[in-house]
């Protein structure tokens, strides 16, 4: 891909210069010139140009010929991440999407499960509509570890040749798949929020946010197989359970060397005393500087508890030591997309917004009507959170009969 200025269309208006975050554009003789040493192909200038004078020269998916080797790769795989022997919900979401992709392509959908004593779990994966489950069962694979999982998955891919491999964009998925992609020279797109098939070329169209969601990019992988994506949790709809669905379990075993790890997992510590797991939560109640002190977080926790939700915090609240880092939502914390996000006393700086603006419903409570959080809030409440939060907790309790 490359970028160029169409001189006939360029008016020398300099809008692109203002838009370029990398100072890569100059206007010489009333025409824009792009310094390719500085340009990162981010596309900001294309957006800014009112005359369509800057274009990215793209590779159209349908123009690409497939080398024969690529055609050997068939089927859609979903890596089914498990913790404590239980396949995680993100895997079921990917199986939902994977089914659509496999049907469009007219190929099989397969789950991949690594762990110890996972036969029952493999059956559960089958009930989500897969044709096959590749099961690698070994005590050495009981818990996720980078090296054994990477080596095993690489071997499976080399042996059974899928065309697409999907995996959750979780702390496991992102560490694992990044290593796997290097080992087999495959293309990998991180943290996708949209997946589709280009029917003509049969290529996977992977759409993902960049710049904290302010720009979306669609990415393809024309000449390498498999096409691999990590996919954001909570974006795709889970595959439905069908206890009558039948599929095959294919048990595969490799030598002990494959399962060997240089790193040692010494302990797993679960911080379950608080509702911390923001990425799993359907409802998140978040607090910011407007809470004034750490004790007032109780108001947030009370509401979260009634709603069965998790507690989030703005960077300001975390940096003040009111909440631990695992609660932080935003650019340097977690990216979340729950069904309902309730922001209390959070002004909504861009760093916070990029971490939560894809939530389905956003509720903002703030006494200042001019804060940016109201620009993204589905429902904005201008008022005192110390009065409103207890009322909300009370009302929800009544409605939910808790």
């Amino acid at each position: 891909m490359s970028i160029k200025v169409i001189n006939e269309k360029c008016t020398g208006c300099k809008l692109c210069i203002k838009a370029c975050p990398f100072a890569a554009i100059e206007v010489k003789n009333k025409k824009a010139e792009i310094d390719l040493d500085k340009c990162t192909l981010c596309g900001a200038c294309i957006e800014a140009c009112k005359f369509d004078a800057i274009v990215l020269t793209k590779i159209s998916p349908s123009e690409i010929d497939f080398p024969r080797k690529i055609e050997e790769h068939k089927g859609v795989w979903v890596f089914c991440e498990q913790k404590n022997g239980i396949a995680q919900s993100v895997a079921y979401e990917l199986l939902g999407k994977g089914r659509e992709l496999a049907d469009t392509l007219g190929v099989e959908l397969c789950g991949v499960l690594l762990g110890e004593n996972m036969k029952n779990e493999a059956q559960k994966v089958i009930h989500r509509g897969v044709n096959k489950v590749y099961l690698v069962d070994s005590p050495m694979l009981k818990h996720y570890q980078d090296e054994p999982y990477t080596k095993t998955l690489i071997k499976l891919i080399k042996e059974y040749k899928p065309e697409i491999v999907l995996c959750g964009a979780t702390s496991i998925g992102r560490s694992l798949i990044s290593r796997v992609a290097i080992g087999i020279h495959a293309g990998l797109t991180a943290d996708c929020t949209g997946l589709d098939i280009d029917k003509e070329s049969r290529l996977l169209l992977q759409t993902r946010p960049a710049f904290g969601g302010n720009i979306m990019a669609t990415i393809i992988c024309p000449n390498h197989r498999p096409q691999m994506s990590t996919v954001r949790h909570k974006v795709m709809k889970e595959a439905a359970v069908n206890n009558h669905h039948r599929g095959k379990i294919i048990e595969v075993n490799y030598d002990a060397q494959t399962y060997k790890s240089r790193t040692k997992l010494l302990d797993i510590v679960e911080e379950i005393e608080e509702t911390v797991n923001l990425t799993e939560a359907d409802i998140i109640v978040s607090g910011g500087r407007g809470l004034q002190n750490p004790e007032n977080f109780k108001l947030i926790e009370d509401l979260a508890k009634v709603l069965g939700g998790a507690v989030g915090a703005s960077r300001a609240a975390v940096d003040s030591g009111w909440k631990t880092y695992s609660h932080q939502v935003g650019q340097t914390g977690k990216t979340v997309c729950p069904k309902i996000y309730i922001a209390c006393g959070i002004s909504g700086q861009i760093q916070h917004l990029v971490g939560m603006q894809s939530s389905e419903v956003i509720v903002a409570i703030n006494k200042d009507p001019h804060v940016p959080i109201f620009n993204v809030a589905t429902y904005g409440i201008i008022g005192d959170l110390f009065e409103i939060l207890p009322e909300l907790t009370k009302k929800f309790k009544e409605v939910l009969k808790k």
Partner: protein
Amino acid sequence: MNIIVCIKQVPDTVDVRIDPETNTLVRVGVACIINPFDMYAIEEGLRLKDKFGGKVTVITMGPPQADEALREAISLGADEAILVSDRAFAGSDTWATSYTLARAMHKIADYDLIICGKQAIDGDTAQVGPGISAHLEIPQITYVKKIEELNLHSAKGIAHSVIRAERMTEEGFEIIESPLPCLITVVKEINEPRLPSLKGKMRAKKAEIKKWEAKDLDVDPALIGLNGSPTKVVKIFTPPPRKGGQILRGEAKEVASKLVELLKNEVI
């Protein structure tokens, strides 16, 4: 102990706002900064150096102006800086980027620990760190929030150094031990980055930054830049902007009832 810290220069978002009319990112006058997560990587490298001695080398792959980011790292206390830069690297995706950086590490040869930020705030992939360790075939620990212990041993001329670190997960954390050399990626919780000293700033001005091009790295031309990148961007667009919705006003009781009514169906 020789530590390499990988950094990336990214556009600063601290002052970035959404233009209320066009609903796009306002980029005018946006400066470039060191990726925030990489600041924690630099700090951790410096703390380890303070404790164990040795040196911290910062490395970045990017356009010539990434030189500024390296100088900032030197002002904080890094000893050496390398800019991996060549037009042949333009258009690299994470595969080609991690390959190129791994070739640079290979050239450095003598390192015990590589530290990266967990991800960059512009691309948000979190793939380059693990990619480098995969290319180098060394172990990795991602999302490190604390280094519990680091032991540098050598017996009979063979190094037996190990690192023990806490790796952040969705539910809590894991404690992982790895032999060195190893690559770690770090999260914000690990430390609080220092500010540059005046002496450091002076040193940064004068410091010599090594510049390595493709010909210096023994790279396969088929594996770098656009050629070496399996993924291609076919479309870039601005998502439909999120609009503000309904504003509720009134007494606390009143607005609470209204909101509960509006959300009732979603909650139950």
